[in-house]
């Protein structure tokens, strides 16, 4: 028996030694490989694999970041968030309803086709096709009357009504131009990179497009976008040198990355967390009760609990810091004031509080953590909150149908202009989980319409001041926190910029400027 035991143990030892040797060999091989990984390839870690690369559908930030490598529109954004010419070199307003864009000379798509006014017109026609999944289909349909070609290099948009935001729509990464020989299902673009290989669900490999209009770019010849859904693994992969840049840096990792001499971070306050309400039924049909909630939330606690202190309280509407439309006085309208909150509760007919349900999601920590702090905050004024935390898909469905009392949401505007708040406040738009259900103030809707149609900045400021005043009274969008949004990268890398404010998600546009040395 002893001999057998020894034999079995020896076998086990051999197994261990063999496995150890194999591991050591493989490890050495990888270590060599990692250090030899050339500087000619940039590896970007996406937070998820894009559900689709259809050119005009909005399928999230990861998809947008990947799309803008091979697809570009007529306009886009520069590193400081300024609108810049992309496939069009210039743009001008020839009257309130006419915009003329001059196309760059010699722009070609990846298949060699030239960018012509006809190609532009075809892209817009496809976007507005009734079977199109373009997120701007409705917006363009409501705005564009016709597209003309005054000469071989110009495109003129005749609009049905004046629009100060039309240029932002043209700069959206959901409005790229595609080759006249391609279609929505298999688009061919004119971006700095072309797709050379796709491992669905895992990675997309790009090679530099030699015919890119911006000569000398992209600075790195090869780009790999690899999906790392686990935020901790994204950070570990960056630290281990597997990837060069990561998006959606988790807030709990900021400190360790800041301490790491090999890594750098680019942080902006961009997206924000807020509360929306069911204004059609339940307790929050009463504006006083919504206001009471707005004054009772301990926003600094949300910033600490959900974002590890990386963000700031949002005491008003989401006018980004630095925006010329932001008024610091009204931006701090809802400072925590429990006495005022109790007074508003009494005025709303609920002096001793009430019970209600808060819709959030357990799928994203920041949504859940925000909901928990809101729950605790409101307990202080007698509002008993029950948390409803389904998965994200259910949260969207329930939100779109208005099956909630109030909800936690996180979002960002589509562009750095007050009109981007219309999606959260304009009740004339289609009901949506991002906006308070049943909220519809015709005056607010009208002011958004006026602001959109007005091209004079001073007059627009006055319009949005009035809109802000009404929206704060209505408290149908209650700001909670600005959250910081960071990209982290390895130190020798340069040229990447985190775009300011709401445009943070568009930062993938600057990957063309990144050099590895």
């Amino acid at each position, binding site marked *: 028996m002893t001999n057998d035991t020894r034999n079995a143990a020896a076998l086990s030892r051999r197994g261990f030694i063999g496995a150890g040797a194999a591991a050591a060999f493989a490890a050495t091989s990888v270590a060599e490989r990692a250090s030899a990984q050339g500087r000619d390839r940039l590896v970007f870690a996406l937070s998820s694999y894009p559900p689709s690369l259809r050119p005009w559908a909005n399928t999230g930030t990861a998809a947008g970041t990947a799309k803008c490598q091979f697809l570009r529109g007529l306009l886009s954004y520069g590193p400081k968030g300024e609108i810049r010419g992309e496939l069009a070199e210039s743009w001008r307003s020839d009257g309130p309803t006419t915009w003329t864009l001059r196309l760059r000379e010699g722009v070609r798509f990846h298949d060699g086709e030239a960018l012509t006014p006809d190609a532009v017109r075809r892209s817009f026609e496809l976007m507005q096709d009734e079977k199109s999944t373009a997120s701007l289909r409705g917006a363009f349909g409501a705005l564009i009357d016709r597209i003309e070609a005054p000469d071989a290099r110009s495109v003129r948009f005749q609009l049905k009504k004046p629009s100060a935001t039309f240029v932002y729509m043209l700069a959206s990464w959901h409005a790229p131009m595609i080759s006249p020989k391609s279609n929505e299902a298999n688009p061919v673009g004119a971006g700095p990179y072309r797709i050379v290989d796709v491992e669905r669900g895992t990675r997309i490999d790009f090679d530099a497009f030699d015919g890119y209009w911006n000569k000398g770019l992209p600075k790195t010849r090869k780009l790999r976008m690899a999906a790392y859904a686990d935020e901790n693994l994204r950070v570990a992969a960056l630290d281990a040198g597997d990837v060069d840049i990561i998006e959606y840096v988790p807030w709990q990792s900021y400190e360790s990355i800041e301490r790491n001499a090999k890594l750098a971070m680019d942080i902006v306050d961009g997206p924000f967390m807020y509360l929306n309400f069911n204004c059609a039924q339940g307790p929050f049909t009463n504006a006083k009760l919504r206001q009471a909630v707005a004054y009772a939330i301990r926003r600094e606690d949300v910033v600490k609990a959900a974002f590890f202190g990386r963000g700031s309280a949002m005491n008003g509407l989401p006018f980004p810091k630095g925006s010329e439309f932001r008024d610091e006085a009204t931006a701090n309208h809802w400072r925590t004031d429990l006495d005022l909150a109790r007074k508003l509760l009494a005025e709303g007919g609920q002096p001793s509080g009430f019970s209600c349900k808060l819709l959030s999601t357990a799928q994203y920590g920041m949504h859940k953590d925000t909901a928990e702090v809101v729950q605790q905050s409101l307990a202080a004024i007698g509002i008993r909150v029950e948390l409803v935390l389904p998965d994200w898909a259910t949260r969207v469905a329930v939100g779109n149908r208005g099956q909630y009392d109030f909800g936690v949401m996180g979002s960002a505007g589509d562009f750095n202009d007050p009109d981007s708040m219309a999606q959260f406040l304009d009740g004339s738009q*289609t009901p949506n989980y991002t906006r308070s259900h049943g909220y519809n103030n015709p005056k607010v809707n009208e002011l958004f319409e006026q602001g959109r149609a007005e091209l004079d900045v001073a007059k627009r400021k006055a319009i949005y001041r009035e809109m802000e005043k009404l929206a704060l009274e209505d408290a149908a969008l209650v700001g909670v926190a600005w959250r910081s949004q960071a990209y982290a990268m390895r130190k020798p890398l340069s040229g990447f910029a985190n775009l300011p404010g709401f445009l943070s998600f568009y930062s993938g546009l600057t990957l063309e400027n990144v050099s590895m040395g």
Partner: protein
Amino acid sequence: MAYVLRRLAISIGLIWTVATLIFLVLRMIPGDPAELLLSSGGVAPDPAQVLELRERLGLEAPLLQQYASFIGQLLRLDLGTSLTDDYPVMDEIAKRLPRTIELILAATILAVAIGMPLGVVAALRRGSGMDRTLSAVASFNQSLPVFVTGTLLILVFAQQLRWVPAGGYVAFAQDPARHLTNLLMPAVTIAIGLSTVVFRMTRASVLETLDRDWVRTARAKGLASRHVVRRHVLRNSLGPVVTVIGLQMGTLLGGTVLVEYVFNWPGLSGYLVRAVEQRNYPEVQGIVLVICALFVFLNLVVDLLYAVLDPRVRHG
């Protein structure tokens, strides 16, 4: 033969039941795939656009018609296409399933290589210090959640020692060495827990066999101890161990979610989670059915193996 045919008929009935259940459950839970797809990024989807997409995806047809179409597709072994990008579900499963099976096989080989010899040693030295130590280590390993083990392995071997990548996947054909090193940590993570199961089962089974009369008889007639253990004890002890390993492997087919997530291994489990999140009906249906079919198949294989290892089953 009749036994095999009966088992096959039961298996097909089981797969049909699972197909019907998953079809119904998916349509009962909240969350509309078209609405979800068009709501990405917080935009307000146009109801007309949602309706058009639902029609295009066949979600507007009456439930019975959808069911008939689904079963018809199944009979043609067609699992449909993804709702998000029209990619054939069968193709994606064909790519991902081998990765998950490879991960499970690698983990199982490691687990058997570690757990089985140690289980035999512990049983043969029952009550000794080594037995107690091994049992204590097994208890500790079993209590470790895979995401903790995985994260610790990443911290030590990827971030500190930099021996292996933190995660990810490279096809074997593209770079065999990189492929294997990527496989190593997720396989070890699963193997740590699985080896505990193999260890315990082997130990218990060997202990039970050691007490049998015929083992005593074998010893009494003067057979060498090594011979008794190998030919009589081990052979008679492995039946339950193989059964448990087979069942564990079946469970792992849909149960490697956390490991695949932690190590970014693009297998079937991760695909299933993403499909559920997106309410991608054809993908969820396809993956669940394939896992179900494999589970049924594995059970059949285990039964046959059991019969090979234990002649009484063959003749019984």
